[in-house]
C-alpha cells in the first residue's frame, strides 16, 4: 500500500484502540509534536462518526418503514375519511363564499345579546361587556306586548367595531371612539323608546373632549354619527365615577409631565424605556419601589430591573422618594389611558430576553459549579517534589522553623509567601533529587553574601504565574512571592528582596502558569550579583515548547514537566457547553442578575469565570 494508506491504517488502529502499549506511546508522542497528524486523526474520527450516523440513519429509516407498515391500514381508513370531509368542506366553503360578500350596515351582520324586559318597572341592565343601562318604568312603549325583547350590541375595541361593521365617521370626518352601543327591539317588534334612558359605557380610554354621538343609518346601511353633545346626564353633569377618573388622569398627567417626560414616553424608548402598558408588565409594588428609589431594586439582582438598566446604557434613573402611592396610581391611570392608543405588541416587554437569561443562568450556574469542583480536584498548579537524601520535601511549606534557627525573627523582614494558584487546564511538575530550598543559604555557606534580587513579571501575567529561582550549581530551587506592596515584583526570601547569594554563579528565574486557557512561560538565565533587577515576560506556549525550552538548559537534573491537568478534558467539555449556551445571553446583557428561573434552585454564579 501507499504510505498515506499505511498511515490511515495506523490512525484507524489508534482510534480502535488496537495499538500495543509501546506503539501507542510512540504514536501519542508523534501526535504531540505533529499538527498535521493531529488534523488527520481528527478528520478520520469525524468520518467515522459520520459513518456511524449514516448507518444509524438507515437503520432508523427501516424501523420507520416497519412502523408505518404495521399501522398502515389505519392510515388508509383515516385518509379516506379525510377525503370525504375535505369534499364537504370545499362545497360548503364555496357556496358560503359566494353569498357572503361584505354586507353593508350595522344591524344585520351579527346578532347582539337579547334581553327580555318588563317595561312597567325600573330596570338596570348590566351587559356582558360591562355597560350599565338604566331603563326607567315606562321609557319603552311596546304597545302592551310584554315582555319586550331588546337586542343590545356593544363595541369598545377596534375589533368589535369591525365585527359589527360600525364605522366611526361623522359627516365624512373620522372620529376616535371610546365605545358604541346599539339598543333596539328584536326584529319584528314595534317597541319604541319614548323617554330618556341612562347608559354608562366602560370606556377603556378617556379624553377630555369626548362627546356623545347619535348613530343614523343612511340609505346604504352605513352609520353616520351625528348630533354631538357633551357627556353626562341630561343636565350635563358627569357621573361620580367619570369625574373622579378624569381628575385622577389629569393629576397623573401633570405628575408625568413634571417628573417623567424628560426621559420617558408612552410609545417609544427615549432615554429610558417606553412606559406604555408598564402596569401589565410589572407588579404595582415593583413599580412603586423602582420609581421611588431604583438603586436597591437594582442591587437586589432583580432581573427585569438589571436588564433594563443594561440596555439603557446603565443610565441611572432619578429617584422620586416623595411620590405617594396615590401619585403613582394616578400616573398609572394616565399611562393606562394613553396606552389604549397603542398596540400592546408594539411595546417591548423583554419577556423573551428575560426568559433567555433565566435559562442561561440556570444552566451556567450548574456548569460553573461543576467546573469549580473539577478545578478544586485538580490540586495545586505546580507540583514540586524535591527528594533530598532522607525525605520528600515539599517546597511552599512554611520555612519559618529553619529561619528561626539561624536569624533572630526581629532582625528579618517578613518572608515572601508564594501564592496558591489553581490548576485549570495544566499542571507543572518539578522534580529533583537532593535539592534545597533557599533557606539553606541562610546557613553561613562559604561564598554566600547578602544580596538583592527582584524579578518583575509583566502584567497581566504577574497575578497568574508562579515564579521560581534555580541555582543549579548549589542545587537550590525556590518559589518566589510578591514583594511588599507590589503586584508584579517577586522576591525569593524576604519581602524587601534581600537574599544571601553566592556571586557570579549561573542562575535561572522562570515563570509558569496559564492564561486564558493556554500555558504561559518565561525564563531568564543570569549570573548572580550583589543587586539585580530581572524582568520576565511570559508568552503563551504549547506544553511541548515549554518542555523543550527547559530541557535545553543545564538544570543539573532538575526535571520540569507540563501536562494537562487531571480534569482538563472535562473542564474543556464544560467550557464547550458554556460557550454553547452563551447564545442565550441577550444582546447587551450579561444576565448579571440573581433571580431564579422556574422551580430550579440552582444559585446563580453572577459572573462567568474566564479560563485563565
Amino acid at each position, binding site marked *: 500500500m501507499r504510505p498515506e494508506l499505511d498511515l490511515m491504517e495506523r490512525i484507524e488502529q489508534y482510534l480502535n484502540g488496537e495499538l500495543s502499549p509501546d506503539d501507542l506511546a510512540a504514536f501519542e508522542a508523534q501526535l504531540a509534536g505533529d499538527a498535521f497528524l493531529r488534523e488527520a486523526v481528527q478528520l478520520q474520527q469525524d*468520518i467515522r462518526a*459520520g459513518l456511524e450516523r449514516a448507518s444509524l440513519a438507515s437503520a*432508523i429509516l427501516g424501523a420507520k418503514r416497519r412502523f408505518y407498515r404495521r399501522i398502515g391500514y389505519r392510515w388508509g381508513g383515516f385518509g379516506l375519511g379525510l377525503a370525504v370531509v375535505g369534499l364537504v368542506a370545499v362545497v360548503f366553503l364555496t357556496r358560503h363564499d359566494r353569498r357572503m360578500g361584505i354586507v353593508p350596515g350595522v344591524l344585520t351582520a351579527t346578532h347582539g345579546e337579547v334581553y327580555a324586559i318588563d317595561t312597567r318597572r325600573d330596570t338596570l341592565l348590566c351587559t356582558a361587556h360591562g355597560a350599565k343601562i338604566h331603563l326607567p318604568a315606562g321609557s319603552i312603549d311596546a304597545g302592551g306586548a310584554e315582555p319586550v325583547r331588546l337586542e343590545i350590541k356593544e363595541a369598545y375595541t377596534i375589533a368589535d367595531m369591525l365585527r359589527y361593521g360600525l364605522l366611526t365617521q361623522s359627516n365624512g370626518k373620522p372620529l376616535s371612539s371610546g365605545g358604541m352601543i346599539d339598543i333596539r327591539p328584536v326584529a319584528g317588534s314595534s317597541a319604541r323608546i319614548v323617554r330618556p334612558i341612562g347608559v354608562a359605557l366602560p370606556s377603556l380610554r378617556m379624553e377630555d373632549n369626548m362627546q356623545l354621538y347619535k348613530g343614523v343609518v343612511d340609505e346604504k346601511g352605513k352609520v353616520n354619527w351625528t348630533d354631538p353633545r357633551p357627556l353626562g346626564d341630561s343636565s350635563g353633569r358627569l357621573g361620580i365615577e367619570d369625574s373622579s377618573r378624569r381628575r385622577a388622569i389629569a393629576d397623573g398627567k401633570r405628575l408625568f409631565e413634571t417628573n417623567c417626560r424628560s426621559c420617558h414616553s408612552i410609545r417609544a424608548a427615549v432615554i429610558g424605556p417606553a412606559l406604555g402598558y408598564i402596569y401589565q408588565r410589572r407588579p404595582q409594588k415593583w413599580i412603586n419601589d423602582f420609581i421611588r428609589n431604583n438603586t436597591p431594586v437594582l442591587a437586589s439582582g432583580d432581573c427585569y430591573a438589571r436588564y433594563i438598566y443594561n440596555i439603557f446604557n446603565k443610565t441611572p434613573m432619578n429617584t422620586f422618594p416623595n411620590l405617594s402611592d396615590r401619585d403613582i396610581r394616578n400616573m398609572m391611570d394616565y399611562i393606562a389611558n394613553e396606552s389604549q392608543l397603542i398596540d400592546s405588541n408594539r411595546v417591548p416587554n423583554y419577556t423573551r430576553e428575560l426568559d433567555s437569561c433565566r435559562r442561561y443562568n440556570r444552566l451556567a450556574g450548574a456548569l460553573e459549579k461543576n467546573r469549580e469542583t473539577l478545578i478544586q480536584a485538580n490540586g495545586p498548579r505546580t507540583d514540586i517534589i524535591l527528594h533530598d537524601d532522607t525525605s520528600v520535601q515539599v517546597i511552599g511549606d512554611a520555612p519559618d522553623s529553619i529561619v528561626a534557627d539561624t536569624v533572630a525573627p526581629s532582625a528579618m523582614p517578613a518572608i515572601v509567601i508564594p501564592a496558591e494558584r489553581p490548576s485549570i487546564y495544566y499542571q507543572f511538575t518539578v522534580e529533583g533529587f537532593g535539592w534545597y530550598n533557599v533557606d539553606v543559604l541562610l546557613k553561613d555557606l562559604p561564598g554566600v553574601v547578602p544580596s538583592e534580587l527582584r524579578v518583575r513579571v509583566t502584567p497581566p501575567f504577574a497575578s497568574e504565574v508562579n515564579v521560581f529561582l534555580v541555582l543549579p550549581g548549589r542545587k537550590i530551587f525556590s518559589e518566589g512571592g510578591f514583594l511588599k506592596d507590589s503586584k508584579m515584583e517577586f522576591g525569593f526570601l524576604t519581602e524587601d528582596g534581600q537574599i544571601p547569594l553566592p556571586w557570579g554563579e549561573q542562575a535561572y528565574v522562570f515563570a509558569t502558569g496559564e492564561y486564558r486557557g493556554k500555558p504561559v512561560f518565561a525564563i531568564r538565565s543570569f549570573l548572580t550579583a550583589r543587586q539585580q533587577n530581572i524582568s520576565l515576560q511570559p508568552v503563551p506556549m504549547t506544553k511541548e515548547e515549554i518542555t523543550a525550552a527547559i530541557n535545553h538548559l543545564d538544570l543539573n537534573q532538575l526535571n520540569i514537566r507540563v501536562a494537562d491537568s487531571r480534569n482538563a478534558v472535562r473542564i474543556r467539555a464544560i467550557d464547550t*457547553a458554556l460557550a454553547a449556551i452563551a447564545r442565550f445571553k441577550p444582546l447587551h446583557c450579561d444576565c448579571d442578575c440573581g433571580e431564579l428561573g422556574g422551580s430550579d434552585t440552582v444559585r446563580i454564579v453572577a459572573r462567568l469565570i474566564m479560563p485563565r
Partner: protein
Amino acid sequence: MDDQTILELIRTGKNDLALNALYRNFPAIRKLVRSRGGSTKDAEDVFQEALMILIGKVKKDFRLSARLSTYLYGVCHFLWTEQLRKRRQQVPFDPQAEGASDITSKGGLTVTEEVDLYVHLQHESRIRLAEQALNELKDRCRELLLIFYYSRLSLKEIAAKMGFGSENSAKNQKYKCLEAARTRLKELQHQTQTH
C-alpha cells in the same frame, strides 16, 4: 419489551430490534411536535435525531434517570424547542407568561442531560459535515465503508460480496475511499470556516 431489554439490545448491536420497539414512542412525539406547530415530517426528523442521541449514549455510558419513553420525550421536546427557537424570532406579547413560557420548560430532563444535549448540538454540525462528505462519495465507496464498519462480515466475505479479487485489494480500496472522504471533508470544513 421493557427498557432494560431494549438497552441490552442496543449494547449488543441489535439496533434493528431495539428500534422497532423504540418506534412505538413515535405517536406521542408526533402529537407533541404537531401540537407545537410542527408537521409529521418535523416529528420524524426530531425523533430520528433523538434515537441517534439515545443510541450514541447507550454505547458510551448511560444511566437511565427515568423511563426510556420519558427520556425520549424530553429529548424530542428539547430538540423541537431548539428548532422553534431557530425558526421563530418573535415571541408574542403575553404579560402572564413571563417566567413561565413553554419555551423555557425542560420537558422532564435533568440539567445534566440538558447540558449534554447542548454539547451534542455543538458536535452535530461537525458530524453532519462528515455525513455530507460521505454522501458525496461514489455509492460503491460508501457502501464499502458501511459494510466494513457495520456489517460484521469478515474481510474475506466483504471481498467476495463486493466482487474484489482479493482481501488485500478490498482493504486497499477501503482506505482509498476513506481517503476520498477525508479529502472532501477537509474541503467542506474549509468552506464553512471561510463563510
